[in-house]
């Protein structure tokens, strides 16, 4: 079981709601994924309407909403958007994403830290999307983040765990859950993320754009479960083959 703030999760696969060919396909895929936490962009939902198409299809007892701030460029904008989201969607959970760069969607470390400090004071459960920067992740932990969400590679790129060396440091040092977000392109990437000890992964594009999103969602579910079991079972260390002669250490056995 994974615990973040006041919630526990059976599934360590978190998902996104964008890029699907229809809300119906999205709903089926999310159910197949077993995901209990799904992120939804504020910009996509009609917060004035109770009949919003996306929200209607996410209305399942096991699915918790994680509103995200996609579109904001500064801490100030993020804090403002977060407050409106809390009111409209009735949750204080927030995926904090501040990417002033609309081309590569690179997160702004400085604004993210500032916003986390501010939002923590306002009582939000904050999951910030950040670079795989171990020092930044410790700073966010100190600022009151409920978890950190470092990227595996550029968002939407499906390139896998390009930042693995830094992810391993983050996982090693963190006292809060580490959720690897962005870049996970295939179930093998998700399994690998879990094997190195990530607490969860967030996957969107790889499921939404797959030929069969529902089947791909269950493939990810299984990969995340397998990776977690492997992590808990402790992978055998890779051992270099024993060498027959030991020219450097043989002297220790002499006499």
């Amino acid at each position: 079981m994974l615990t973040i703030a006041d919630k526990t999760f059976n599934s360590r696969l978190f998902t996104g709601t964008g890029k699907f060919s229809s809300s119906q396909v999205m709903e089926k895929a999310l159910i197949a994924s077993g995901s209990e936490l799904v992120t939804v962009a504020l910009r996509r939902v009609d917060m004035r309407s109770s009949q919003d198409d996306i929200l209607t299809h996410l209305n399942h007892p096991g699915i918790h909403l994680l509103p995200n701030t996609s579109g904001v460029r500064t801490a100030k904008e993020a804090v403002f958007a977060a407050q409106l989201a809390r009111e409209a969607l009735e949750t204080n959970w927030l995926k904090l994403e501040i990417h002033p760069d609309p081309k590569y969607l690179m997160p702004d470390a400085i604004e993210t830290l500032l916003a986390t400090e501010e939002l923590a004071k306002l009582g939000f459960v904050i999951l910030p999307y950040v670079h795989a920067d171990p020092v930044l992740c410790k700073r966010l932990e100190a600022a009151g983040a409920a978890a950190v969400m470092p990227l595996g590679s550029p968002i939407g790129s499906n390139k896998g765990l390009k930042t693995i060396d830094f992810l391993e440091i983050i996982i090693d040092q963190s006292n809060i859950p580490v959720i690897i977000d962005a870049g996970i392109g295939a179930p093998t990437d998700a399994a690998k993320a879990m094997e190195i000890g990530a607490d969860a992964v967030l996957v969107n594009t790889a499921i939404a754009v797959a030929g069969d999103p529902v089947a791909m969602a269950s493939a990810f579910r299984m990969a995340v479960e397998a990776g977690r079991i492997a992590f808990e079972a402790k992978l055998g260390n890779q051992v270099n083959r024993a060498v027959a002669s030991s020219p450097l250490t043989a002297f220790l056995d002499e006499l």
Partner: protein
Amino acid sequence: MSFKTEFDQYNWDEVRAGIYAKTSSDVEKALNASKRTLEDFKALVSPPAAAYLEPMARLSQKLTQKRFGKTIQMYIPLYLSNECTNICTYCGFSLDNKMRRRTLTNEEILREIAVIKKMGYEHILLVTGEANQTVHVPYFKKVLELIRPHFAMISMEVQPLDTEEYQELIPMGLNSVLVYQETYHREDYKKHHPKGKKSNFNYRLDTPDRLGKAGIHKMGLGVLIGLEDWRTDSFFTALHLDYLERTYWQTRYSLSFPRLRPFSGGLEPKVEMKDKELVQLICAYRIMNEELEISLSTRESERFRNHCIPLGITSISAGSKTNPGGYSVEPGSLEQFEISDERTPGEIAEMIRSKGYEVVWKDWDAILNM
């Protein structure tokens, strides 16, 4: 420093010759490259690339889905005014087109909005001619104030303004500005814009710089296809885009490809672009730039738009009127151009869904424009 400095280093005829000198092997190199240059773009818009249309379309589709998913966004134009002090040889609003003019009042705008909202729209594009005495920044401010509560995203296609003017409008909810250069051929531009403020090529050319400096969220570029050689004009658009992306890296960019359409008493296109060539161009831009938003208006035919949905475009309009008051106030007023695809937004949405794409009415929020 502005784009003009970079633009002045290029010569139209040399660029044109460079494009027409590209060979099949240049096209293949461009298609197989992992990182593409403007030379690759020239190859992708060159005549030999026509033989690679199917692989180009497949690549374009793949790249578009990776970034945008299986979604198409909907937007609609709202023409506020057809008053204009410019002479443009290809436009229905041209000063020398002796027709009665109209600029919508507050009350009329609200009536038009009511119709548009009923269609389901959240993204609106405000359009005017250029009449600086009446349709000016105070008018735009009044309009934005009126419209902002009703729409999630507001774009504008009006006369070019100064940086400070854009800075006044952006906090009032202006998200995006479209400004088409029409043609990057300086002499030809002069010919098509003989009178009015628009005849100043340089002022228009540097408008995207002013928008970037003002901190606009999104801007749209393009040329009017039919005025000049489309391959060369498209290269300059790509050059402009490349410069802007490097300089104003916090801004999103969109493109569209208006092909010259008939209007009462108007100009015949000098260069005709075939459907095949427009598809080639859409795919070329997508292969060059995975993040670019590409829209297709009702200038295009039903059949063509149906088939373009999965090829690389990201947004589409429907049910459009190109005359002020066209939705309810005065349906018969002077229109800018004749539209070709007359289907309703509902019919277009159904067509998009039948292609396996989700129709996205809202992908922004007023709270994001601070």
